[in-house]
């Protein structure tokens, strides 16, 4: 292979920017993906995640910055020179080739002696052996998805890129493939970079999630950490649900900040707030909020609201509560008690939460 770059190690994006004319799709991002990890790029459509992926693949060249694997600088090299393979959103199987020839395409181009054998092994890994002689048009979406995965995996790339690979599948198949993908990643031990707009998919599969918005990486970390302590309003709302309110920081109380929200003092741990004076958005996840009919004799952090809607979910009962600020909060009551609260729409309730669970983020996203 002329020009092929053998490269090993962590993937790094170094101040990478991509502009299309006036539009900056990816704006000066830094990324470090340890070798062998399952990394998710999560964000709404148009946030730059697919452009980032295409720059790693070499299908787009960055306007500025560098793409590195280990110590090898891949910036400017062509896709066929990179030890990187892509599973395309539309699968992009070669319609004129059989499934086996599709999978053997990469090894053949690299002049591997045992291309056919390796293709068969890869098809076995994704449990598609019995379809080897068929053409792509004869397979279902889920089957084509597996073939696309095998066609990329067979090359043992240093980095495997997955561009919304489960987007076209129905819900049940998605769940199956999520488990399957995770199993395969563990088995082959390659670096997987998974682009998705589905926060649940990102959280269940990835070791590390980077949340992207408007060409920036808003926050990066383990799924549980991102969920527990979002650092921007966008992350708080995009990753799971968040009950939020806007307040002004008036005081401190030991380790806590005290913000005033419509006359009610609300405490936030200093270490869990990104802002320490002026306006703040405080937030708390729905499952951390407790509902009761009477005012709890706690340490504040209690707000009165009116029940708007009740849904019985089996394991829990979900309430929507109208807050004095005009916002609607969501919370759950676990169905543990012998005598449930039996709230009805219109009932007045008190919501409370442990200050240690609240987080504070800036009012304005960039």
């Amino acid at each position, binding site marked *: *292979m*002329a*020009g*092929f770059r053998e490269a090993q190690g962590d993937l790094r994006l170094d101040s990478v920017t991509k502009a299309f004319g006036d539009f900056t799709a990816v704006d000066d991002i830094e990324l470090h993906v340890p070798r062998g990890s399952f990394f998710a790029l999560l964000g709404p459509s148009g946030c730059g995640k697919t452009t980032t992926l295409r720059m790693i*693949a*070499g*299908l787009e060249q960055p306007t500025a910055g560098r793409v590195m694997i280990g110590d090898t600088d891949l910036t400017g090299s*062509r*896709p*066929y020179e990179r030890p*990187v*393979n*892509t599973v*395309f*959103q*539309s699968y*992009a*199987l*070669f*319609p*004129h*080739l059989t499934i086996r020839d599709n999978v053997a*395409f*990469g090894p053949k*181009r*690299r002049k591997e002696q045992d291309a056919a054998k390796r293709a068969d092994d890869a098809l076995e890994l994704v449990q598609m052996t019995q379809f080897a002689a068929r*053409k792509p*048009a004869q397979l279902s979406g889920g089957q084509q998805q597996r073939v696309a995965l095998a*066609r990329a995996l067979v*090359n043992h790339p240093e980095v495997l890129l997955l561009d919304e690979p489960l987007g076209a599948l129905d819900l049940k198949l998605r769940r199956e493939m999520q488990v399957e993908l995770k199993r395969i990643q563990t088995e082959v031990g390659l670096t997987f970079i998974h682009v998705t707009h589905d926060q649940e998919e990102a959280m269940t599969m990835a070791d590390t999630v980077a949340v992207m918005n408007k060409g920036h990486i808003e926050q990066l970390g383990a799924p549980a950490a991102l969920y527990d302590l979002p650092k921007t309003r966008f992350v708080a709302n995009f990753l799971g649900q968040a009950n939020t309110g806007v307040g002004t920081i008036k005081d401190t109380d030991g380790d806590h900040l005290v913000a005033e929200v419509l006359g009610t003092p609300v405490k936030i741990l200093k270490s869990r707030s990104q802002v320490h004076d002026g306006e703040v958005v405080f937030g708390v996840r729905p499952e951390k909020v407790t509902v009761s009919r009477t005012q709890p004799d706690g340490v504040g952090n209690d707000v009165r609201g009116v029940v708007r809607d009740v849904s019985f979910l089996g394991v829990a009962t979900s309430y929507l509560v109208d807050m004095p600020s005009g916002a609607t909060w969501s919370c759950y009551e676990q169905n543990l008690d012998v005598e449930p609260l039996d709230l009805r729409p219109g009932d007045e309730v008190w919501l409370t939460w442990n200050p240690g669970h609240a987080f504070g983020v800036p009012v304005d996203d960039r």
Partner: protein
Amino acid sequence: MSGLAQASVAPAAAEVTAGGDDQRPTRRSWTAYLLLLPGALWLGVFFVLPLVQLATVSLQSRFPGFPGYYYRDVNFQNYVSALTDYGPHFLRSFVYAGLATFLAFVVAYPLAYAMAFKAGKWRNLMMICVVAPFFTSFILRTFAWSQILADEGWVAGILNFLHLLPSGHIINTPLAVVAGLTYNFLPFMVLPIYASLERADPRVIEAGGDLYADGFTTFRTVTLPMSMPGVLAGTLLTFIPAAGDFVNMELLGPQRGKMVGNVINDQFLAIPGGYPVAAALSFTLMAAILVMVFLYVRRFGTEELV
């Protein structure tokens, strides 16, 4: 050709409708046949009947002593004479048509490729340029070529200046005929290739690059095979009419060494009593083309993609 295609549609359509609705199978399948009726009638009156007529004419014999008169007969001598007297004409037709098809492919593929992938905002303008010649008559355009290729024209002038023309002429040579055929049938090559390239998913072509194929290898192993249905259609649409053409030979070609289309034309219109031989020539040409097309499609056809 179209007759075969039409015929194969009928049973398939009936099957689909019958399978789709078990409640009223008879009525549904009748609807399908009813819809086919105008087309079938048209084909019957203007294709099948004339074909049968031509077949009977091709077997008739001349009335001795009465030039231009025939009687009904089963006379295969017409076919023997078509093949023995006019073998070289058949050969020229197929060689010139084959060359024109090849040249049209060589010109059309890069053009279609550029239109599909590189043209951007110029795509529509290029499309108009490809189709624009159809707004002028075929004969007129071929006359224009006789001007362009004339001895006094600039093409012959430049080639003569460079001493690239041993005979000193382009006009009235087989080269002019092949050039005319290539030009006249070029759009029929460009459009199907363009359509198949334009329809190709760009991600599939990117996947070639992603899987270690460089630009040329991706073209050879992905883009070209994916456009084969268009190439197949284009070559057929060029070769078949070119093999039967006589206008280009008439207006651009030499006096001697004509193509089979000219012979058929002469036998029908110029030579008294030439009808049976002309009909036999037509049938032989049709059979030869059908056999060639059949072999060609079997060799290169990709049924999943056509």
